[in-house]
């Protein structure tokens, strides 16, 4: 699903070069739930940005669902991002002036789905996160946990192959965080690949596999995915496959 090989990301100014990622390799298979951990400034967000086609990389290669993304133009990256990836942000990033229905509709409009299809997908996605009855509400009328659920609905509505979550519980209290985490686990059980960047070791422990990043390099990773969740749910063997990081 996601394969980065010897990836480099260098930020250059006229004075200094900062190596955000160096010789960074990771392979996430379809259906996995991978947690990427590491201290602040380690390169987690840079990895997430590159994985999500939000930033370009300086060297190495990156294949997303079999597509070599190197050299893709801005529009092609946008379309690929829209079709393949769902984003969950730490600050939810909902659009405050749009109600829940319209918020979830944003990526679907860019995808060009017909109105009836969009409506069905929005209702389905909001129903999946338990907010079907609040479609006409605005984000400010919801709790943080509910807002993150809307963001998850927005990410799911386009049926992405990959869900990228950036500290999805970072702005939530422990009760809400648990609810969001359970939702992500359920989504993963239903087959969506999830890569989650987090500081929280407890959350990371709930993922099938952990990748630890320090100074822009992968320093530690589980050789095998945790089998527990796949076994618990009777999920396909995808989650049990070996991992190359």
């Amino acid at each position, binding site marked *: 699903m996601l394969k980065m090989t010897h990836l480099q990301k260098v930020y250059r100014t006229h004075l200094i070069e900062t190596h955000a990622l160096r010789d960074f390799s990771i392979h996430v298979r379809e259906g996995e739930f991978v947690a990427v951990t590491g201290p602040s400034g380690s390169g987690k*967000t840079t990895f*997430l*940005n590159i994985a*999500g*086609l*939000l*930033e370009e990389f300086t060297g190495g290669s990156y294949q997303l669902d079999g597509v070599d993304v190197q050299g893709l133009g*801005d*529009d092609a990256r*946008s*379309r690929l*991002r*829209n*079709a393949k990836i769902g*984003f969950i*942000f*730490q*600050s939810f*990033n909902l*659009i405050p*002036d*749009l*109600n829940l229905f*319209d918020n979830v*509709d*944003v*990526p679907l*409009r*860019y*995808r060009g789905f017909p109105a009836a299809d969009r409506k069905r997908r929005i209702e389905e996605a909001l129903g999946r996160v338990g907010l079907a009855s609040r479609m006409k509400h*605005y984000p400010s009328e919801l709790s943080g946990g509910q807002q993150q659920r809307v963001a998850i609905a*927005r990410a799911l509505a*386009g049926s992405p192959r990959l869900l990228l979550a*950036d500290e999805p519980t970072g702005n939530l209290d422990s009760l809400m965080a648990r609810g969001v985490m359970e939702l992500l686990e359920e989504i993963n059980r239903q087959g969506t690949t999830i890569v989650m960047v987090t500081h929280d070791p407890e959350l990371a422990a709930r993922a099938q596999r952990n990748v630890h990043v320090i100074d822009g390099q992968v320093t530690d990773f589980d050789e095998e995915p945790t089998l527990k969740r796949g076994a618990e749910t009777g999920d396909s063997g995808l989650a049990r496959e070996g991992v190359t990081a």
Partner: protein
Amino acid sequence: MEIRPILSALMRSKVSMVLIGLQVALTLAIVCNALFIIGQRLDNMNRPSGMNEADTFWLGSSGFGQGFDAKAVQQADLALLRQLPGVASATTTNSVPLSGGGWSTGINLQPQQNTSTADTTIYLVDSHALDTFGFKLVGGRNFKPEEVTRTTFGDQLKPASIIVSKALADALFPDGDALGKQVYMDQDPPTSTIVGIIERAQQPWVSSDSIENATLVPTYMPYGNYSRYLVRAEPGRRDEVMKLAEQKLSEANPSRIVGRLRSMEQVREEAYAGDRAMAIILGAVIVALLAVTALGIVGMASFWVAQRTRQIGTRRALGATRFDILRYFQTENFIITTLGLVAGGILAYALSLWLMQTYQAPRLPWYYVPVGFLSLWLLGQLAVLGPALRASRVPPAVATRSV
């Protein structure tokens, strides 16, 4: 198109939308009416007087002292003027088109009519008038020298023959058979016969409703000791002849003052000075309004782009292309402008109605508002283009940056 979500988002920040919409509405209403007024003024200024304005000038002679024989001096002056080098033609006249001062009367088709059939200005001239003014004869004939009477100021005008402008001829005889017809001036007999029709001769008053109704009456009639002459110089020699005419008339008779020289170009400039000033002021108002509106749109759009940087980044992260972002801001501006224009269209016609009722102004032609719509749509789209392009360059990675 994202019209519905954009509109519903705008409805949540109504103040900015209302302010810009109001600005657009006022701009449309004022610009449409101001442009119409400017157009009217320019049309007025471009109306032909019917004269040869490039080569003509007029001057006055004001006698003083006992024994000043105004009639004799008038004849002597005309003879002198006609033999000056560079003079093509000269006539006496009481007034000229565009000068702002002259005589007017009613013309009747029946004696003792209560209401005149038409109003006209009267130019008291001699048989050189057509040649001097440059009026174009389109029917009948010029005055014969023997038809030019000698009258004293205060006498009732009883011209046997008159020449009228085509506009007046048509007003009197709509069937087009004015030539040879008899009319009554000053309500009383005897009648005057229309012996000639000239293509066009404007009245002295530029704001007259019947500006092209003019009558030439063949008579020498000094205004007390004052006479006025119109002179046509040979092409290109007007300024030179003006100085010479003033000098020679002064030398010819020291018992009078020669002055009030004005070329017809000066007369026209003075006649329309107010209209010109009005057009310039309204033009400046239009430019200022359009500039303020455009700057308002630029300012608002720039503010919104800065305020929504993270939101734009999120949209990009969710799959929006740069063009999608550009289109979003263009569409948003289109919606605000359209709402303003709808209100402005109503306001424009309301303002026109008020001008009609208050100042008897003509009705604003219908097409001004649709043309204004297109222009302000274009202005809005151009004004928002800069901020929208800036927005489209917001990188998607902004979405993951810490607040």
